[in-house]
C-alpha cells in the first residue's frame, strides 16, 4: 500500500510518519511537497502534524490553500483514503473535509503526554482491526486540540457514528477528568460521513515502536493495511 505524506513549511511529524509507515512490511511512504499540484500514485494521503505556516491566523488556515490541497480534495471526494494527524486534523477541518474546528485547549496549556483513547467503532478503514471499546495508549502534543462543533453537527456525528476515538481513562471510561483539552464529547478523532477521511489529535505514528513506550498506534495503520 502506498502512502503520500504531505509536507508543508512547518510540518514536523512528516519524518515520523515516513519512518513509522516504511517500517511496516506492506507499506511504502513518500513525502510530497505542498507546492506540488498533483499527488503521486498512492492509496492513502497522510496530512502530518506540526505547525504549518507557524499556525499563523489559525492552525491549518493557510496550509489548506496550498496547491496540493486541491488535489487532496479531489482525491477525498472520489473516495480516496485521507488521514490527518494533529495539525493535519486541523488542516482537514479548515479545508472543510471534516466538520467542526479545533480551538485552544480549555486550560491554555500545550499538552505533551500519553493519553488513553477509546475506539468507538471498528466500522471504518482506520479502526477495523480494533474492536469497539479498545483502549489505545497514544501520545498527544497540542495547544489547540479542543474539538468544537455546533449542536446540529454533534448530533450528526453521533447519529452517523463518525466519532472514532474518544479520550478516556485507563479503564475506558470517557469522563471529563479524562478529557485533556475540553473537546466536546471527549472527541479525539472523527471521520467524515463517507468514512474515508479521518482526523485525530493523537499521534499514532509516534506509537509504533516499543522504544517509544507504546505500539498502540499500529492499530490504526494496520487497519489501513488490512
Amino acid at each position, binding site marked *: 500500500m502506498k502512502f503520500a505524506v504531505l509536507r508543508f513549511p512547518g510540518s514536523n511529524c512528516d519524518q515520523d510518519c515516513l519512518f513509522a509507515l516504511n517500517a511496516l512490511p506492506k507499506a511504502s511512504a513518500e513525502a510530497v511537497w505542498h507546492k506540488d499540484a498533483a499527488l503521486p500514485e498512492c492509496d492513502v494521503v497522510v496530512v502530518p502534524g506540526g505547525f504549518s505556516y507557524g499556525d499563523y*491566523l*489559525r492552525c491549518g*488556515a*493557510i496550509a489548506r*490553500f496550498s496547491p496540493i490541497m486541491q488535489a487532496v480534495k479531489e482525491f477525498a471526494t472520489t473516495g480516496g483514503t485521507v488521514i490527518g494527524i494533529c495539525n493535519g486534523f486541523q488542516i482537514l*477541518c*479548515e479545508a472543510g473535509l471534516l*466538520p*467542526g*474546528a479545533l*480551538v*485552544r*485547549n*480549555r*486550560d*491554555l496549556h500545550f499538552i505533551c503526554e500519553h493519553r488513553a483513547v477509546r475506539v468507538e467503532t471498528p466500522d471504518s478503514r482506520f479502526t477495523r482491526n480494533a474492536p469497539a471499546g479498545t483502549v489505545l495508549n497514544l501520545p498527544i502534543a497540542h495547544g489547540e486540540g*479542543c474539538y*468544537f*462543533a*455546533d449542536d446540529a453537527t454533534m448530533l450528526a456525528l453521533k447519529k452517523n457514528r463518525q466519532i472514532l476515538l474518544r479520550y478516556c481513562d485507563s479503564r475506558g471510561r470517557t469522563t471529563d477528568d479524562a478529557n485533556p483539552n*475540553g473537546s466536546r464529547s471527549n472527541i479525539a478523532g472523527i471521520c467524515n460521513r463517507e468514512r474515508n477521511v479521518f482526523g485525530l489529535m493523537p499521534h499514532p505514528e509516534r506509537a509504533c515502536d516499543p522504544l517509544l513506550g507504546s505500539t498502540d498506534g499500529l492499530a490504526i495503520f494496520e487497519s489501513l493495511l488490512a
Partner: protein
Amino acid sequence: MKAVVHVMPKLSVLDPQGAAVAQAMTHHGLNGVGRVRVGKLIEIELSASADEAALHTLCRELLSNPVIEDYTLEITA
C-alpha cells in the same frame, strides 16, 4: 483605502484566553470584570479599486473560520 477586520470567537465557543485575561484583571484589582473575550484585529491597506464583495469572501474563507468565529469588515477612505 483601508479595511479593518474584527474577528471574534462566537459566544457559543469556549474562550479560555478571555477567561484567563478576565481572571488576571481581577487579580490586578479591577472590580466588576465580567466576561472578557479575546479576538483579532486585521488591518489591510488597499488600493482604491479593491472589491468589497471579494473582501467579504476573503473574510469568510481565510481571515475567519465561520464554525468558531464571527467577523465584521469596515472599509475606510
